């Protein structure tokens, strides 16, 4: 019975494909390229045109990019397809999901040979991903502030997490939810790092008492409730990225209308790695090296709105001018995040969204 069902299915499939993809058939024409890699990544992956072509020029290896949802979906996809990997190289595993990927054994041992001491700060701890993951970019999730609103209101801007719970800033703060948004989760982790495993619950109770607004997603918070130039909202404090202010600068302006509060940041680092089970490990390693090379690294800020990690990369002019980097961002060890994610999110939901 099993076989007959499959034959039937095959028959139907052939018909359907014949009908549907005649236009795509030419794509699959046998070319001369000997090697081909599939780069599995998240939806936000973006490089300017021709960047990946440079890799093909240098090595003769063609790269096909395959998106797989957001960062969480990406890692879960790799875990679910362990027996029959989706591709050869993955980019976009961040420090909040790194531990899951490493513990599930979905990665080969390889970290770019081009890493130097200058990138030490981005490396994962030994035994927890250092051997498998190469840092590619990083961005800080920070509370953003609408300078113009505070100037007009004549109130001093807050600077720390503690300020957010002071009565002066009642009803002024909006954040995306930790359980449905990755910047939301990053902000929760910042508060956990700042207040400790036993203190953050109390902090969040105070935040709620002080009128924090919790939206489902980042775009909701940023474009509906934030008072910044991009929206009509009335809350001048929002959880976003440290790289958001440069995006708000209009041409020719000398000052950004918004800014990031650098004492409230959680650092997200994104990594690349070779997927376990690849048939082309040598080529896959070359692609990881390429993602870490200045060619890609220089291209990252303008395309993915995050900072390159390679010390040799150069920043675009507006970034050098308007994008700030937190000196002491909050951090939580990837292992700890992986172990406690469910418990933290459940506790958080009980406090923040009763």
């Amino acid at each position, binding site marked *: 019975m099993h076989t007959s069902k499959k034959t039937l299915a*095959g028959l139907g499939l052939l018909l359907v494909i014949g009908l549907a993809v005649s236009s795509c058939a030419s794509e699959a024409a046998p070319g001369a390229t000997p090697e081909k890699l599939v780069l599995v990544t998240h939806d936000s992956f973006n490089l300017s045109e021709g960047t990946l072509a440079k890799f093909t020029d240098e090595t003769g290896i063609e790269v096909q990019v395959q998106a797989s949802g957001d960062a969480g979906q990406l890692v879960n996809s790799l875990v679910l397809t362990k027996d029959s990997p989706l591709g050869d190289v993955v980019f976009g595993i961040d420090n909040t999901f790194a531990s899951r990927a490493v513990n599930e054994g979905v990665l080969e041992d390889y970290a770019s040979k081009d890493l130097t001491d200058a990138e030490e700060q981005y490396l994962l701890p030994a035994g927890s991903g250092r051997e498998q993951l190469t840092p590619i970019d990083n961005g800080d999730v920070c509370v953003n502030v609408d300078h113009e609103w505070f100037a007009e209101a004549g109130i001093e801007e807050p600077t720390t997490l503690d300020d957010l719970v002071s009565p002066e800033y009642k009803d002024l703060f909006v954040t995306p939810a930790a359980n*449905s948004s990755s910047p939301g989760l990053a902000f929760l982790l910042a508060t956990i790092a700042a207040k400790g495993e036993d203190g953050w619950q109390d902090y969040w109770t105070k935040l709620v008492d002080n009128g924090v607004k919790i939206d489902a*997603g980042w775009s909701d918070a940023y474009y509906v409730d934030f008072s910044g130039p991009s929206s009509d909202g009335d809350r001048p404090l929002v959880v976003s990225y440290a790289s958001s202010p440069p995006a708000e600068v209009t041409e020719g302006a000398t000052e950004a209308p918004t800014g990031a509060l650098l004492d409230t940041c959680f650092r997200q680092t994104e990594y690349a790695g070779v997927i376990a089970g690849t048939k082309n490990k040598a080529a896959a390693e070359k692609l990881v090296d390429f993602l870490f090379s200045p060619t890609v690294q220089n291209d990252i800020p303008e395309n993915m709105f995050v900072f390159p990690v390679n010390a040799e990369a150069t920043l675009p002019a507006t970034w050098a001018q308007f994008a700030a980097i937190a000196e002491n961002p909050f951090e939580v060890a990837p292992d700890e995040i992986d172990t406690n994610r469910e418990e933290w999110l459940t506790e958080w939901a009980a406090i923040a969204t009763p």
Partner: protein
Amino acid sequence: MADRVGGDRHPVISRVGVRPAPSTVIAIVLGAGLPLAFVGVFFAWPVGAMVARGLFADGMLDLSGFAEVLARPRTLRLIGLTISQAALASAVCVILGLPIAHVLYRLRFRGQRMLRALVVLPFVLPTVVVGVAFRTLLREGGLLGSLRLDGTFAAIMLALVFFNVAVVVRTVGTTWEGLDQRQEEAARVLGAGPVRVWFTVTLPRLAPAITSAASIVFLFCSTAFGVVLVLGGTRFGTIETEIYLLTTQFLDLRAASVLSVTQLVVVVAVLLVAARARGTRTAQRRVDSARSGRAPRLGDLPNIAVTLVVAAFLALPIVALLLRSLRTADGWGLGNYLALGTTGSRNALVVPVWTALGNSLVIAVQATAIALVIGLAASLVISRRPRSAGLRRSLAGFDGVLMLPLGVSAVTVGFGFLITLNTPPFDLRSSPVLVPIAQALVALPLVVRTILPVLTGIDGRMRESAAVLGSPPWRVLRDVDLAIVGRPVLAASGFAFAVALGEFGATSFLSRPDRPTLPVVIFRLIGLPGGDNFGMAIAASVVLAGVTVAVIALVERLRVGTMGAF
């Protein structure tokens, strides 16, 4: 397809025979084979595999998860919320939808078809964008801020009604349009007042359509995902949002499987109700809809008032989007639309929005072709009325299977694709054909529901006389079935096309970054900081809405009563 199978010239005199003619059986088996294979490979297998991952531990079926997960207070609360949300929304949709159906389908006035097309619009708009538009209206300081609805249960209700009132309007409206009015007239002549006529004559005859529509709205509402997430402000959730959370955040497949099965049980139950209601509806005699309308009268005022208020409510978020799309950093203007030819501010996109629209159109055409072939084969088979009760029952079950994709979480389907379609001949995970296939799966129920009622409406005697006069079965199929179904097929294509254009859930899992669709691009733009990118996202949504309305309005010209009716 099935048409060449009945090679024997034996006339199908089914009225006399107790058993169905062999050719009918073969045609049914083959005609059902293609759709079943399609739904089996691209829906049942992936979803089944995902659910099995959660329920099998070390090769052993472990059902203890059910007791454990279903006993969690959070799960119970979410199931309760899902059901009450969906039930209430269905009730509101019916209460508001009936007067509108009357106005749009029983009366005749200028601009009526445009209004009918507009009612469908919310159905195909990207939920993220609509969510943001709604919240812009409802938030404090927004146009409707004084109602203090932001983040409340009422806000979710508004959005659910916004998206689904069209289902009631179309389903009930098209039935109503086809009702023979002489019964009402007779009752009135005999002295019954309008209220009494409505409750004793009209309502009973509309009841099957109402039940059918209400159950489909219930289905859509209980699986609504994005809109509940955005408008519920995280305080509200559904089984669907919980499956998403469990799968993507916690990778708790066991709990996710339990909830998927629970959801499936609810969905199947609702589909059974819908199928039962539809079954009685086909018994209605239909009149030519072109002659059933009349000019509005004074007594229609309450209905017209309701229609106007609801139309304004439907238009509000759309107008808000339109206005926002015309606002740029330098004031009012077409800047956001001009930007659609670029890759966005600071290189936000890989391809310009127009290119993405092109991709969307091509992919939607492919999806439509697939949905049409499968849907037509399925409808031809389901429309048969074999003598054998067993065969009839299996056909009804088959009908239900085709509707199931409407009721299963996109996350489950998406991950299911990844873990099943991974070995030849089904190694399709990174293949571009998966996107149109996923969209076709979503459009398929709409195609079947548009074509099937027309086919079942064909008098069986037409086929029999053609057969008796010596036509071989394939000619009967061509000259009777396919000739009559031509227009509905065209209408179904249009509707499937519009739905495929707007599909996002499954597409986001499968899309190739170098060939993004319009909804994927909109989603990306709305996720980036900077007012210009947001403006572009809104402008792109307006374009998507515009193309959709144009397609639906064209289809409306075909005057196929069943389009978009369930």
